[in-house]
């Protein structure tokens, strides 16, 4: 698509104008001290953003602004899915956070950071974006008074990871004299920078062994915050990982092999530890770690198909995760946190039991769900990149995972003696159904998402 320079800039401005509006809206309506108008306003802004990025995505736009930001299919793909994810998380928070205004303000800062990362065209934008994303998240976790410990842990680990990241950026600058995302020459300093990068993003993307506190944070945070952490923030770690590894360290074979090894470790760690968990939330935390391991397979493949597969899996997991944490939030509000507490759920609410079952089947990778398509694409890309062993380890892991997903499913369908019907709140039902629709419909007909992801991945490789 041919666009003149002025029009490009105007489009950029429109886009960031929307972001500012989003922010200002929060501040202005905050004065009225009413949650509902603010909530509506946020939903409207986020929907507009999603629509806008979807329309730009179909036009194959690719441009840069001020050398720092770039609108391209890769960034728009993530803006689209993460905006919709934020919309759904916002609904959860509105239902459960108590003080929605505080959540909205922090979330809008965090979203700004996420957009910066997605649009990043230089290491500086990535750094600023990540920082902007992480710090408000700590306060979101803190909204619930009981989660002080989780917030502290999140803060410490984020600080370490951001510290390492800045060190990595400085090292790259020292070696190449540039903050741009361009191919680096292999040197000892650059290898060091690559290791720093992978380690620092290890926490942001929940990769073993840099993820050690993540289950604690997920378990200790209120469920809507966990939905945001696991469904949105941890995905941003992957965006950066893909950008930097493909654009900067593309020729560093040992770094990609390291990613493959980390993928194996992360899958096994997540899956094996999940088997022993009694708390449903903690089990899901380990499960999301193992899913991060699968996502790394596509990055390790270092091909366009691999990146597309990782992007699809990020999309798939984001919505499954938010959907299932909507259910967890609902259960949590009734003080049911253990897997054993799920007994009789089917009698209480058929919808919730069926939805949770379908989400978990999708996490296992049952055909006709997005989870299946994502894993299938990942394994296929690994095989095509001559990483058959990695694909097979992935297969073994996805079968191990059946064990711990089966337990909650069986518990939900077990019969409880005195079970009464419970009607879930409308907002929760909406979030669950929306996530379920995405999981099932795009699992049955995944072509649009695959085309978008392929397009985005091809763009990323054309820049490299």
């Amino acid at each position: 698509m041919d666009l003149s320079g002025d029009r490009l800039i105007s489009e950029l401005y429109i886009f960031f104008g929307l972001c500012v509006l989003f922010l200002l809206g929060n501040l202005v309506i905050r004065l009225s001290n009413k949650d509902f108008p603010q909530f509506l306003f946020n939903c409207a802004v986020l929907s507009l953003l999603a629509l806008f990025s979807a329309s730009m995505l179909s036009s194959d736009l690719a441009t840069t602004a001020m050398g720092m930001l770039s609108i391209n299919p890769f960034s728009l793909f993530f803006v689209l899915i993460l905006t919709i994810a934020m919309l759904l998380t916002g609904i959860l928070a509105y239902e459960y956070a108590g003080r929605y205004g505080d959540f909205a303000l922090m979330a809008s800062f965090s979203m700004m950071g996420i957009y910066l990362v997605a649009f990043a065209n230089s290491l500086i934008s990535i750094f600023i974006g990540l920082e902007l994303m992480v710090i408000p998240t700590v306060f979101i976790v803190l909204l619930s008074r009981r989660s002080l410990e989780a917030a502290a842990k999140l803060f410490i680990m984020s600080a370490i990871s951001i510290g390492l990241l800045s060190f990595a950026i400085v090292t790259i600058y020292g070696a190449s004299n540039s903050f741009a995302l361009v191919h680096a020459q292999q040197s000892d300093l650059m290898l060091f920078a690559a290791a720093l990068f992978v380690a620092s993003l290890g926490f942001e993307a929940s990769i073993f062994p840099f993820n050690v506190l993540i289950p604690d944070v997920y378990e200790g945070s209120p469920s809507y915050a966990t939905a945001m952490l696991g469904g949105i923030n941890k995905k941003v770690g992957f965006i950066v990982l893909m950008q930097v590894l493909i654009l900067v360290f593309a020729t560093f074979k040992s770094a990609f092999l390291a990613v493959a090894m980390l993928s194996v470790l992360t899958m096994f760690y997540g899956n094996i530890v999940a088997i022993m968990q009694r708390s449903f939330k903690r089990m899901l935390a380990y499960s999301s770690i193992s899913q991060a391991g699968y996502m790394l397979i596509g990055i390790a493949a270092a091909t366009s198909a691999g990146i597309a597969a990782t992007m699809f899996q990020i999309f798939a997991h984001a919505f499954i995760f938010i959907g299932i944490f909507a259910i967890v939030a609902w259960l949590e509000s009734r003080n049911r946190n253990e897997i054993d507490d799920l007994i009789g759920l089917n009698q209480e609410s058929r919808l919730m039991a069926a939805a949770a079952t379908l989400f978990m089947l999708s996490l296992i990778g049952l055909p006709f769900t997005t989870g299946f398509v994502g894993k299938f694409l990942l394994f296929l890309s690994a095989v095509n990149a001559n990483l058959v062993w990695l694909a097979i380890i992935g297969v073994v892991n996805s079968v191990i995972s059946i064990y711990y997903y089966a337990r909650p499913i069986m518990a939900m369908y077990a019969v409880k003696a005195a079970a009464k019907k419970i009607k879930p709140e409308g907002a929760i039902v909406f979030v669950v159904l929306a996530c379920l629709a995405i999981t099932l419909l795009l699992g049955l007909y995944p072509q649009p998402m695959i085309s978008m992801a392929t397009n985005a991945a091809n763009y990323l490789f054309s820049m490299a």
Partner: protein
Amino acid sequence: MFLPLLLLVPLFAAMIAIALLRPSMKYGYIASAASLASLLLLYFVQNGSITITWFTIGKDAIAITTTIAPLNMALLAIVFFIGTLIHLYSTGYLKTLSEQKRFYIEMLAFEIAMATFAMSGNFILLFIAWEFLSMLSYMLIGFWHNRERAVRAARLAITTVLIGDIALIAAIVIFWNTFGTFNFATILSLMPHSVSIGLLAGSALLLLAIFTKSAQFPFQEWLPEAMEGPTPVSAFLHSSTMVKAGVFAAIILFPIFAAAHLLALMLWFGVLTAIIATFNAMREKQVKRVIAYSTVQELSLMLVAVASGALIAAIYFFIVQSFYKALLFFSSGSVMHATEEESIDKIRGMSSNKLLYISTLFGVLSVAGMIPFSGFFASAAIGSSVFTNLIVYSLIILIGLGTSFFIFRWFFMISGPDKAGETALRYKALPRAMIYPAVLLAALTLAGSSIFFLIPGFLSSSPAFITGAPQLSVSLLDIVSVTVLFAVGAAVSYSLYKPSRLLKPSQKKGSALASLAYTHKFFMLLYGGAARFVYEISEGVGAFDLYLSEAFDWLGHAVVLASRGIRRMSVGGINPYAFVFAVGFAVLLAWIFLVIV
């Protein structure tokens, strides 16, 4: 275009069940009618292959391919025909009507998955169907989910079958890597003359998947355990359809195993399983488990026939076995229904319901191999297929003898005289829906013999490797040997379990040798050990976090002791997790620097 309809009719029936089913309804008739409609629709289905692209990524198109060849038609017909009878039988069998919704929805879903499996023409569709079969089998075995034994049996089944699922998908991955396609026909046309590592690894994993699904050594025990499920489930999934998925895959992908030189392996595992199953069946007391071991043994014999290249013999056995095996399960269910006992030591008096008695006898005669029942031709065909290998042939002869013995033992015991005579009325009061399907199947055990003569014509449009397989024939030697085995087994069985003996049960325990032959307990211990091993690993890794933080605490204290002066500055702040992070980083750094690619 009639192909999707085959699946849509049961799906529609399942939807009716979801929407409309009330506990008072006799829903089985609707399910049965749906299966019958699909069976009739088969008449319009034509041979050929359909490919629908599901999605494309880059230049790879992921497609769903269906293939209809005579063998696929045969399996589809079995699924829908047995399905029709199963649903009918279930109307009599299910006493707790509140459970019938779940039951029929799961059964219909199984029927759809099995039919999908039967028409699969590439690995994508095969895998999808295979996976759903595993899951539905798990749900149906554990149908009585408040019985602990049922839950345990379901868990054993899913664990075993999951090993096969890993193997299957790994095999698919390797085949894709080796041949670049998922399509069966294309893969079969690409068979090389020399064995490549990809072909060998892929087909070995595929064989492993077949062994788990079709309950072959060392995975055979899940099938007898699966008898904890409702009887219609045993009759449908665990005798006539699902367990044969493995054998079916072995037949349609036969050239792969031939090219990979794995047929000898298949042969000997088959023979070994058959021996184990026969011995277990001779000792087993639970009425359904005897039949289950007999099923395991028949599946082994089918694989033996496949491995010897006698594909037509295997297909014949594959078809007729469904009839008499479903029949024997129907009978088992009926006698359990009437007596409310499970052990053949206690079940007596089946002869008081003449219709049931005679149909069961037909099934038994067929299993034992009496001329002219369809089982006779099956035994003869299997015998002649391995005739060139004298060791296997003599083992098959002995297995035939054992079969005749244990099936008559089962039959004589359950139809033996009932001392108190109180069950006679209950036998007579058995619902008609439980008797007539058995009668129909009994007729087919006889009529099925005609398939022996019709099958070459039926299979004429099959792929070349099937039509080129040795034709069926019965020699005088086969007739004599099968008949002698049948007679000797029956006679020995009668002398041990004749009515006069059954009336005064001996307290004599079986010899040590005989209990050694009952390997069931040994295998269960083996599985338990394997499961515990995996569990320990998981627990060990689960304690990882804990040990790690303790180790680092200890390290911290050591540092404290070493330099008290800087304690306040550093050690007090050491967070074990940050330490893990640091160690991880150090390892990563070393990796990136030292691994030269």
